[in-house]
C-alpha cells in the first residue's frame, strides 16, 4: 500500500510546491508592481511641483508690492551701471478701464515666440503688432496661456544679487500676465531679439506704449487680453508649448 501511495504523495507535494512557488512569485510580482507604481507617481508629483514652483521675475519688488510707482528724476542700476529712467506723465494714470476697442476685446491675443524672441499681437485675424522682444535669460519666462491681470503705467522693478542686482524705477507700460511676470518697456538696454530679462517680456518703449494702449486689463467678469507664451509659434498661429504652466 505504502509503495503504491508514495508516488501519489510525491506528485501531490510537487503540485503543492509548484503552487506555492507560483503564488510566491505572483505575490512578489504584485508587490513589485505596486511599489514601482508608488515610486513612479511620487517622483512624478515631486518633479512636477518642483517644475511648477515658478519664482518671481523680480525677486525683490515681487515680494514688496506690484503697485504703480512714478518716480521721475530717479536713477536706476542695471549690469552694475547707473541708468537714467524715462519721465512718466503723472496724468497718464494706470487704469483698469479699457483704453483699446471695448467691443472687440475678446478677439485680442498676444503671442510670444520664445524661439525667435518675437511678439505678435492679433485682433481677430488682423496683425496689430509684430516686433522683437527680450525674454528670460537669468530667469525663465513661464510658458502657458494667461490673461493680463493688471496694467500699470509705471512701476519699480528690483531683484538679483551681487553683480546681477538691478533696481529700476519708472519701468513703463507694465502688463502683468502671471504673478509679477509681465510685458513692459525696457529703457536700460537695446538688445531685443535676444534673451535679456529675468523672466519678463522686455519690449522697446515705443512698442510697449502702443501695446499698452491696445491691450485690455480685466474688467468685471471679463478677463484681460489673452497672452500665450509659446516655445514656438508655427504657421497658422499654432502655439507649441512644452510643459505649459497653465
Amino acid at each position, binding site marked *: 500500500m505504502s509503495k503504491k501511495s508514495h508516488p501519489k504523495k510525491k506528485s501531490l507535494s510537487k503540485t503543492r510546491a509548484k503552487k506555492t512557488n507560483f503564488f510566491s512569485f505572483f505575490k*512578489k510580482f504584485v*508587490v*513589485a508592481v505596486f511599489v514601482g507604481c508608488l515610486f513612479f507617481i511620487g517622483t512624478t508629483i515631486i*518633479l512636477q511641483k518642483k517644475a511648477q514652483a515658478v519664482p518671481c521675475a523680480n525677486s525683490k519688488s515681487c515680494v514688496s508690492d506690484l503697485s504703480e510707482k512714478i518716480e521721475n528724476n530717479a536713477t536706476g542700476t542695471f*549690469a552694475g*551701471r547707473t541708468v537714467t529712467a524715462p519721465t512718466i506723465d503723472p496724468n497718464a494714470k494706470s487704469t483698469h478701464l479699457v483704453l483699446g476697442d471695448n467691443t472687440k476685446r475678446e478677439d485680442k491675443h498676444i503671442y510670444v515666440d520664445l524661439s525667435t524672441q518675437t511678439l505678435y499681437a492679433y485682433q481677430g485675424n488682423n496683425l496689430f503688432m509684430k516686433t522683437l522682444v527680450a525674454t528670460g535669460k537669468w530667469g525663465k519666462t513661464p510658458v502657458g496661456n494667461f490673461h493680463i491681470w493688471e496694467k500699470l503705467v509705471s512701476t519699480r522693478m528690483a531683484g538679483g544679487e551681487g553683480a546681477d542686482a538691478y533696481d529700476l524705477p519708472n519701468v513703463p507700460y507694465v502688463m502683468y500676465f502671471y504673478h509679477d511676470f509681465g510685458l513692459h518697456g525696457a529703457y536700460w538696454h537695446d*538688445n531685443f*531679439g535676444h534673451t535679456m530679462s529675468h523672466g519678463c517680456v522686455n519690449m*522697446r518703449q515705443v512698442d510697449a506704449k502702443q501695446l499698452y494702449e491696445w491691450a485690455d486689463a480685466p474688467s468685471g467678469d471679463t478677463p484681460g487680453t489673452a497672452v500665450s507664451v509659446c516655445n514656438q509659434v508655427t504657421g497658422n498661429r499654432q502655439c*507649441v508649448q512644452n510643459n505649459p504652466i497653465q
Partner: protein
Amino acid sequence: MNMTRRHQLTFELETLSIIAISACLGIVLAMYFHNHPKKISFPVMDTQLSPTPTAPPPPQVDSSSQTSPDGTKKLTMTITSKNDADTKSYIFTTTDADGSNQQQIYTAILPPTESLTIPFNTWSPDNKYIFLQHNTKEGNEALVLRANGEPMTETDQSFNAATLFAARGTPYTYQETTGWASETLLIFNTTNADGTKGPSYWLEVPSKAVIQLSTEF
C-alpha cells in the same frame, strides 16, 4: 529548522531586492518622462478662421530706417547707385520722430561686394550712439558712431568693433554685434577657431575696453 530560517531569509532578501529594483525603476521612469515631456500643440485661435499671413514690408532698396527704442529719434539710410553701378553710396541721417532736426551723420561709398545695414538694435538706450553693420565677403563688422555726427576718434567718424577686437589677439573671431547691454556697452559674440560658438563680450564705447562675459548672448 535551520533550513527553513535560511529559506525565509532568502525569500525576504529576494522580495526586498525586487521591491528596491522596482522602486528605482519607478523613479527612473518618472524622471525620464519628466525630462522628455510630450509636446503639446493646440490651436489657440479658431482654426476655422483663415488668418491672413502678414507679409513683411516690401524691401526698401534705396532707403531704410530704424526708430530709437524710446520712439523719439530715427536713423535713415539712403542708398544711391552710381551710373556705372560699380559702387553704391550710403548716406545716414538722423531726425526727430516728427522728421525735424535732420542731420547727416555718416557717408560711405562701397563696392557691390560690400554693404551697410541698420540693425534693429542700432540705437544705444540713451540715443547717444548708433552702430551699423558692415557686410563684407569675409563676414560682418560693426561700425560705432556718435548719433550727433561728431567724430568718434581724433581722426575718424567711426570705429570698427571687429578690428578693435582682432587687435587684442584673442583665440576667438568676432562674429556679430547683437545690441546694447546699457547706454555705453555693446554686446558682441565670437566664434572659436573650429567655428563653434565662442564667448560673448562687452565693448565699452567711450573707453573702447573689451570685457569677456561669462554669459553667452
